[in-house]
């Protein structure tokens, strides 16, 4: 026995090292994990950094930290409501505009000039590069708007020089100039009256940057930093970004509204929908976007997880690249539209949590009209149309399917498989193409696709927002995935936006709707509900219908508060 002990000394010493290194924590883990009762009895077991922090498992990397530069929902979710503020906000409950960085505003000169009075004593964030010496004033508004309005602005071409929202919404051509009237007063001069102007200013893209930060970066010759080490006035300060891993924010202590209750906000980047759901169940995520709703409902989660849903102004569609044959022929597009069994898509891909869309406009819009071509599922008709178009034997085509979930489409790749099978019935052979999301968007912008399954989430409620960003000539390269340019349609769209009375606009939109449903540059598929799932003790995460997620009013209830809330309100729904 003595000999046996003497020899394996080396082995035992490494073994104890190993024990210390990771078996010990493991055993601790198992001990604590196996006694959940002990944990719930002693809430103080939760280490302090985790108590007032919130983990949001986002679906991807933002392209930058400035929503002016793109239209990607991921970027908007990560930046717009967290880092920045706008001049005014849109309140969905009352359907009115409410003051934000501007305290009030008025329309002058018959709607061609708007005057904004700005809020005083609004503090900017600070970071290692920048300590603000002053609070928010008119210079910051000028800086933020001139950047994308004025091609001679020093920052115009920094980080790409593309401002897709402002191009496709027409804002860039609508605003003639912005003028500083006083230290806290600015005037916007418009080329013509526009009924969607204020709505556009309230979107997530029209954020206010810091002019002082811009100057300092310019002096240091590090101008590119402005979109990657962002400074804003919003409720959270940007701390760090590690690609594919996380974005870290701290609470902005001097926020001009009430500072948020969450001290520490982390976006844990989890592109995989299935993993996001599992991490919500294990408690690694507090809030997740785009949950697999069916799965979650089937799970027995003991009221620990809540799923919130709401109507969202979005539409999923199949866009045909009308710049490429044979998709330049409306007959072919109509044939393909008849070939797809869309009700089956609603059942399988959306599990019934969506409505079949017959038009780009959702049925809730005041401009919606029943009188449209509905393209029922009819393979026979489709084959006939193909024959008329001179393609009786079908053809081969690509369907591009997004690699990520969006609110309008929970699984584009699965959808593409369904469509692929439908098309095979009419002799069209389809290949499914997919790239990493940012690459995918870049290639779409270059128009490399033949057809793509994508969609649109409206930035504001005006019907214009469902047409101009998707089908106007100016939107080619940004929202116009069909590369569709029809001057007649463009004219109608401008005419419709220049009118201010609904009664006059309505017939114009009927006309527009008819042209679009005749031409089908895009085949509308579904209007989907927007879902979000979170731990039951998280309250106040806001999903405004016309914008990204907001954590300004989020908070974590203590177990006592949670019980209180539960007993209080069985009838009361949790706030959206």
């Amino acid at each position, binding site marked *: 026995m003595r000999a046996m002990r003497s020899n394996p000394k080396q082995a035992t010493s490494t073994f104890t090292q190993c024990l210390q290194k990771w078996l010990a924590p493991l055993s601790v883990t198992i001990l604590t994990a196996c006694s959940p009762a002990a944990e719930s009895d002693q809430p103080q077991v939760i280490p302090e950094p985790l108590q007032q922090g919130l983990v949001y498992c986002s679906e991807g990397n933002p392209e930058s930290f400035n929503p002016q530069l793109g239209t990607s929902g991921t970027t908007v979710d990560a930046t717009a409501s967290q880092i920045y503020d706008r001049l005014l906000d849109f309140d969905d409950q009352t359907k009115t505009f409410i003051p934000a960085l501007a305290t009030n505003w008025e329309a002058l000169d018959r709607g061609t000039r708007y005057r904004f009075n700005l809020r005083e004593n609004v503090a900017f964030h600070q970071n290692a590069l920048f300590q603000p010496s002053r609070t928010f004033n008119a210079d910051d508004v000028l800086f933020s708007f001139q950047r994308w309005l004025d091609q001679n602005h020093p920052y115009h071409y920094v980080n790409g020089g593309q401002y897709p929202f402002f191009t496709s919404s027409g804002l860039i051509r609508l605003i003639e100039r912005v003028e500083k009237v006083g230290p806290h007063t600015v005037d916007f001069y418009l080329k013509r009256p526009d009924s969607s102007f204020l709505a556009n200013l309230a979107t997530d893209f029209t954020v206010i940057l810091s002019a002082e930060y811009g100057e300092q970066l310019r002096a240091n010759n590090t101008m590119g930093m402005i979109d990657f080490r962002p400074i804003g006035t919003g409720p959270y300060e940007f701390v760090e970004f590690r690609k594919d891993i996380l974005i870290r924010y701290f609470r902005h202590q001097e926020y001009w509204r009430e500072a948020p209750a969450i001290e520490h906000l982390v976006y844990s980047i989890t592109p*995989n*929908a*299935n993993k996001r759901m599992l991490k919500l169940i294990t408690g690694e995520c507090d809030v997740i976007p785009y949950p*697999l709703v*069916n*799965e979650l409902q*089937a*799970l027995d989660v003991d009221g620990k997880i809540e799923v919130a849903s709401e109507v969202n102004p979005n539409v999923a569609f199949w866009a045909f690249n009308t710049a490429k044959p044979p998709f330049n022929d409306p007959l072919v597009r109509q044939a393909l539209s008849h070939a797809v*069994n869309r009700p*089956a898509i609603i*059942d*399988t891909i959306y599990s019934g949590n969506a409505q079949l869309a017959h038009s780009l406009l959702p049925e809730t819009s005041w401009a919606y009209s029943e009188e449209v071509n509905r393209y029922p599922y009819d393979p026979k008709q489709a084959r006939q149309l193909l024959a008329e178009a001179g393609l009786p034997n079908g053809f081969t085509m690509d369907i591009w399917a997004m690699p990520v979930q969006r609110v309008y489409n929970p*699984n584009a*790749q*699965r959808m593409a*498989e*369904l469509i*692929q*099978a439908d098309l*095979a019935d009419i002799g069209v052979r389809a290949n*499914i193409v997919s790239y990493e999301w940012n690459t995918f968007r870049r290639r779409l912008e270059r128009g490399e696709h033949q057809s793509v399954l994508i969609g649109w989430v409206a930035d504001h409620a005006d019907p214009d927002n469902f047409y101009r960003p998707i089908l106007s000539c100016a939107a080619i390269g940004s929202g116009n995935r069909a590369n569709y340019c029809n001057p007649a349609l463009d004219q109608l769209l401008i005419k419709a936006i220049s009118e201010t009375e609904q009664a006059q606009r309505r017939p114009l939109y009927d006309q527009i709707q008819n042209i679009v449903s005749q031409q089908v540059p895009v085949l509308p598929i579904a209007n989907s509900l927007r879902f979000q799932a979170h731990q039951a003790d998280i309250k106040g995460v806001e999903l405004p219908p016309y914008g990204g997620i907001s954590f300004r009013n989020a908070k974590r209830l203590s177990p006592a508060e949670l019980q209180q809330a539960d007993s209080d309100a069985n009838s009361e729904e949790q706030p959206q």
Partner: protein
Amino acid sequence: MQVWINFQSNPFALSALYCFGFITLMMILAPVLSPFDANQQFSDIISLPPSWDDDGKMRYFFGTDDLGRDMLSRIMHGARYSLGYPILIVLFAGIIGTALGAGAGMTRGLKSSTLNHLLDVLLSIPSLLLALIIIAILGPSLENVVIALSLVLIPQFIHAVRNAVHDEIYKDYVVAAKLNGCSTWYILTRVILPNITTVIVMQTTLALSTAILDIAALGFLGLGVQPPAPEWGTMLARSLDQVYLSPWLMILPGLALFLTVFSINVIGDSLRAAIQERIRNS
């Protein structure tokens, strides 16, 4: 023959062989036997559990997936991608690799040693890593996966065969044949090759399980066979979103993969044991 007798006396080896034979048969007869086409969608029967479940139906023996495709048919057709293509790849790589390896084994000196070092570099890179790099060059598709894995497996055959030939070439019986004035070609094909058959067979089973696992791993990562082809790895990756409501979608392709690789590994292992037995007995 001796090897076969030894092999036969091992019940595990035999059952593995039958299992492998069964899977291969299924694969070959899939177009005839499978109840449906692999991509036929029954949109009214979505996510049906397998037949042994209370809600299952005999008509869809393994159930259906989230698009209403019959799982049994998909798994049977999928064997063509997950087993059929690996077999083709291994045959192709085996023939080329053996020829090159035998040639290299017969030569000596600088040429041979350079080749050896080059092979060291290639072999030190794991096959999956190399396949990933080739996919990065060519782009993900079935043809490119076949090309990538063939290229990856050839060096392994060269290495194994070269070393085996090298080991034999100094043995007395080869020297004797040489002294008899036999040509190099004769020595290689008639004298050495029969004696290294077992090495080649072993290398083949090893390469086959590597090829199957790599093709599945590439499919799982979305870099291999593209959907809707019912390749098992791709099916497994695509099923993860449904893992709660329909766990069979994930378990069945994984099980199919496991059984295939397991039977190949048991066959390879038993072959090795049988060969060792013969050596010990002789």
